[in-house]
């Protein structure tokens, strides 16, 4: 028995926003534009949190010191994205990852690139957890996390 068809009405909601960064994020991105990555240290647990934070989410105290970390680090984990959806931040294929930067105590979310995405076997052979990677900075930077185009394997 076939089901009766009922109408659906189509619509779109498109709304602009303006997101305040606050002093810590503002400074972080000023440094970032100059190809410097900064974290802030928690005076209580001594962790260096990257990106820089106003306060330590575990100790709930103000961070006390700005610490520059390397733009190089180790891959904590990654996933190769080969499916598409509406309003995706980037067109697939891409690799999303968490990278432990040298000098930081928490992982940074970013892309891994500089790898041939045409063949999964090649990716599997090339991209490993524990692999060393280095930031590839964009020529033209605008003070956004995507000023780093991706992290590429260190030869």
């Amino acid at each position, binding site marked *: 028995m076939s*089901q*009766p*068809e*009922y109408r*659906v009405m189509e*619509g779109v*909601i498109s709304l602009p*926003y303006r*997101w305040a*960064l606050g002093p810590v*994020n503002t400074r972080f991105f000023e440094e970032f534009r100059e190809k410097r990555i900064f974290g802030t240290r928690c005076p209580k647990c001594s962790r260096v*949190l990257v*990106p820089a934070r106003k306060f330590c*989410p*575990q100790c709930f105290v103000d961070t006390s010191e700005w610490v520059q970390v390397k733009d190089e680090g180790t891959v*904590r*984990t*990654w*996933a*190769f*994205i*080969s*499916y598409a*959806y*509406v*309003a*995706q*931040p*980037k067109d*697939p294929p*891409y690799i*999303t*990852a*968490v*990278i*432990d930067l040298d000098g930081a105590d*928490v*992982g*940074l*979310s*970013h*892309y891994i690139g500089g790898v041939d995405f045409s063949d*999964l076997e090649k*990716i*599997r052979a090339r991209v490993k*957890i*524990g692999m060393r990677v280095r930031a590839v900075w964009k020529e033209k930077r605008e003070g*956004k*996390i*995507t000023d780093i185009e991706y992290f590429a394997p260190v030869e």
Partner: protein
Amino acid sequence: MGRLVAIIGTGQTRCGRRDDVSYPELIYEAVKAALRDAGIEPGDIEAVVSGSMPPPMEGVNAPHLYWADALCAHHRPSLRVATCGSTGMSVAQAGYYHVTSGLFDIVLALGVEKMYEGEPQGTMTTVADPFFQRPFLAGAPGIFSMQCNAYIHRYHIPEDRIRQAAALISVRNHSDAFDNPYAHIKIKITVEDVLKSRIIAYPTRILDVCPASDGACAVIYASEEKVRQLGRKAAWIRGVGYAGDEHWFGDSDKVEWQAAIVAAKEAYRMAGIQDPLKELDVAEVYNPFTFQELLYYECFGFCGKGRAVELVEKKIVERGGKLPCSPSGGVLCTNPIGATGLQRVAEAALQVTEKAGAHQIPGARNALAHAMGGMDQLNGLMIIGKNP
């Protein structure tokens, strides 16, 4: 310690693409069924808790205002609770708080989603902060695949072996879904089908992943006194636990995953459970991804670290095994997200009251219900028993 609380009624809608009903009509279907099951009238409900995913999913903000008529919410308190994937579990726990606190005797909890009306992955991407994490998201599969990769690597699990175990989980859930009248995806699949299915976020393949569904689930709670008065079969809430991580995905370890471990410990402590594998009879584990189901076995203490594959290989987690997991077919086959966590609770209640029909686990006395939310951020559990 609060008052004893029990579930006296559950109502689930058929799930799938539900263009045949509007948003409130879908809710009405679940609430009507729950009222019928509980043997009470709409006027008996004293307070309502409801929830769904972030409202851009359906394009209706503060949607519990739109739902009010279908929730019997007139002239009584009505709260919206939303914690992403764990919404259904948060709604369940908030409903429980209402009654255990002594303020209300009969409370309706409702979870719903109509995922065919919007763009689920696009909506979920906006759950992340706009500055640092959002650009790198790839919907839910991106997050879960990163977690899975870290898990495989941590314990040096041979990839073939875990791949095989995850495929068996997919086959088991898809087979079990045939016995659940409300399930969405009902297809016969083999291990071979899973292994050959399209990769969407390596190592995750399409048959490792849940669908997007339309569906609603309602649960009715009652105080001990009301349960006795009404003389209904009751599923007793024995333990609840809920815990979260930092919003920053890279701040915490997602393998020895404290949000899941702490939430389980708290629920077990409250229920007096020491050996979950022995004392639980059925577990409705939140399993939108096959690999993640494996990780939960470890976080919930069903087995030791890195040993989850053994539970699958030894058939411990299937029907007939020592601890059947997700005999409803799980999230893997049915996922109207705002309702999904509450479906786990409803299914656990059905099991301990022996009302689960074709997927009943014979003699089930203690059941676990679980849900997870956010970018691997939140976990909630409930232990539900035949006896208080």
